[in-house]
């Protein structure tokens, strides 16, 4: 008898599991963005999820919830410790930010706390200088830094974010010491410092720098990525200019779920979400906003996370 009941229970559970995956999602889904409303991550998250309610996507809308603070730490801490792992709570990730923060410590998450679903965008870091700057290439910058060690000031959006990683890589590749000035208030404040001449140069997001260059305020000297960007076909990469800087600082944005989310749900999301990102309406809006897209599947993201963790551990070891 006991066996029978146990068997029935097992069968029911199996059924329930299968049914859950089949019916998922049966109510609207929430996606947490760990930066403020109106920021680049929030803005892009809203665009890429706008077709979630379509029949060929998830069939249910995705609502964005902002939990900003401390460079994303507040939101990701919340996601790692308090979010329900039922597939109805997703979050946006920013690599290398959260991996660098977890290596540096003081947070309740690491790359193992989350399961990636898919990647939607890749925003490389670029080196900008004011429009009237005497620097015209990375070689000029490096030459000046060699003559004046520690005196070349350049801004970026805080410590242990993509900009800082790019700064460390440039210094290491060129073998020079420069003065990285982290700003409070993100990329916008760092860009203002460059335009206003408070610093001699700066690291910034390609999308923001592209806009500032269009407005005639800055010159973009180099892209910290493996190949040139479609938005800036004339700007050479760091490697083309002889600086051994890879794509470790590229700001990858995508969707993830908490660790213990049911495998069926993860599989369903991993199959549907990349296609949702590939929707032409999404691509058009992203293109219009100057936001570079880079769709990657779950397996590709997993590899990318592992590779980042490796490089960042080496890079940050000395700090």
């Amino acid at each position, binding site marked *: 008898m006991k066996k029978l009941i146990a068997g029935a229970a097992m069968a029911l559970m199996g059924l329930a599991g299968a049914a859950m995956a089949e019916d998922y999602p049966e109510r609207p889904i929430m996606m947490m963005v760990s930066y403020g409303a109106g920021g680049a991550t929030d803005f892009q998250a809203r665009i890429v999820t706008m077709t979630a309610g379509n029949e060929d996507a998830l069939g249910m809308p995705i609502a964005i919830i*902002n939990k900003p603070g*401390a460079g994303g730490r507040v939101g990701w801490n919340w996601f790692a410790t308090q979010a329900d792992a039922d597939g109805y709570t997703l979050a946006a990730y920013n690599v290398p930010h959260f991996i660098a923060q977890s290596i540096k410590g003081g947070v309740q998450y690491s790359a193992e706390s989350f399961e990636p679903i898919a990647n939607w965008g890749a925003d490389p870091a670029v080196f900008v200088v004011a429009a009237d700057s005497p620097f015209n290439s990375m070689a000029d910058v490096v030459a000046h830094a060699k003559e004046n060690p520690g005196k070349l000031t350049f801004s970026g959006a805080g410590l242990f974010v993509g900009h800082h990683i790019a700064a460390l890589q440039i210094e290491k590749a060129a073998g020079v010491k420069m003065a990285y*000035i982290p700003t409070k208030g993100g990329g916008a404040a760092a860009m203002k410092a460059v*335009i206003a001449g408070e610093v001699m140069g700066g690291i910034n997001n390609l999308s923001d720098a592209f806009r500032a260059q269009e407005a*005639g305020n800055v010159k973009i000297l180099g892209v910290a990525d493996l190949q040139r960007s479609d938005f800036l076909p004339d700007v050479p990469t760091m490697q083309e200019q002889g600086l051994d800087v890879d794509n470790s600082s590229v700001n990858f944005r995508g969707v993830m779920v908490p660790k213990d989310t049911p495998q069926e749900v993860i599989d369903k999301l991993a199959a549907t979400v990349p296609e949702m990102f590939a929707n032409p309406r999404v691509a058009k809006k992203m293109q219009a906003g100057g936001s570079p897209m880079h769709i990657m599947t779950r397996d590709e993201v997993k590899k990318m996370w592992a590779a980042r963790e490796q490089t960042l551990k080496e890079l940050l070891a000395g700090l």
Partner: protein
Amino acid sequence: MEFIYYFGDVFSPLSFLLLLGGTIGGLILGATPGLSPTMAVALLIPFTFHLEAVQGLILLGAAYTSTVAGGAVSAILLKIPGAPANIATTLDGHKMAKQGKGAKALQLSFLASAAGGIFGVLLLIFLTPLLAEWALAFGPSHLFWLAILGVTVIGSLDSASVVKGLLSGCIGLWLATIGFDDIMGAQRFIFHPSLGGGINIIAALIGLFAIPQVLTMFAKGRRTEGAEVIEVQKHSVLDATRELLRRPRALGIGTITGSVIGLIPGVGGQIAGLVAYDQTKKFSSEKEKFGKGHSEGVIAAEAANNAMVGPSLVPLLTLSIPGSPTAAVLLGGLLIHGIFPGSDLFDNHPDVAWTFINSMLVGQVLMCLFGLYVAGLAARVAQVPQSVMAAIVLALSVFGAYSVQSSMGDVYVMACLGIGMYFLERFGFSAAPLVLGLILGPIAEANFIQGGMIADATVGKSAYFLTGGLNIFLIAVVVASIAYSAWMELRSRRYTTKEEAQA
């Protein structure tokens, strides 16, 4: 004069309907505690996905102008400042509402808002290139001195004594250090995960202003019910206009301070109202009336916080750098339609740029009309029995604090600060200087660290912070401000001791 050419676009049927909807909706959102202008605009962005770029921006522009003004409603009637911009409005506005002059306070605030707001937008239209240079002139060292200037205001702001004002300012400065430090990522005073992001300013505002008031109402119990029903005086709009015109100094100081300070990226919007209030008080011949329900206080604060709306968009529209959180949200609204602010906006999409600016101009007028219409009705809130009122304000406070970032942590922070403030008020401390400390602390700290890092790499700290025209000017203003406060304190002490001696 190019903007006049595009005025027609604002009045096309659909655009005008959106403008109307944005204005009314904005007033309601602005009056709701916890919904700051930034959030209201962010909430509206998804609606603009389906609109043309011009129409979307009309909606956002109208909502921005009217939420800033709408914040005065809850500030005056409920003593809950909707955003940092409205703190100064509560000081005299809520006192007026308690005296039954709520209608007058609301009418004055909307008229002053419109006057200041229109001036600000006109500055945006005519002086944008000049203003852009001014906005860029403020580097870390100048912002640091500006924050210090704000700190000197603390002592004289809404307190019984300078010492108590400075002490509550210090508590505010300490509270501001809680959380991850934004530049270095160091953790400070985080005893609970919900403090990781620091103390949210909106939650703190609600807690510090509304909760002590709720506790006071509850503490009174039901005994005094009936005895304290306030007679709400009717007040005609014409009288309000006359009152406004009789106070040109408050209006002028408010408007000019608001537009000048509102322009400075990252700082302006939050402190414009408080600085204007303080300056008006210092120049007024009726200083002693401030903080007791004086109309000049409301006029200066509201003129300033709406005057800052236009100039605060200058860095965004000309340089493509959002100077305030709301401007950052508006940037998203522009980008989604493929429009890049900067020279591209005015050269290639003049219809969008000018229609947007015009809609803010027309929005100011509409906002004023609707505001005046509801002022008389809204003022009756003061007649609600205290016990009921306390419950309503408490419910709105919890809702407001939660809605900032959908987090219960903010509600606990609000409750703790509120209860703490209740006891501090018993000892004659007041919330305004504390909040000012909370706002200025991070500005002063971040700019000092950042400026220090630049200075170490270049000319050295003393040269960086103490030389240069703008630095010296700001330091002079700081010294003058401290000297003035000290002189006033000494003078009033001499008087009181004389009176005591005579008595």
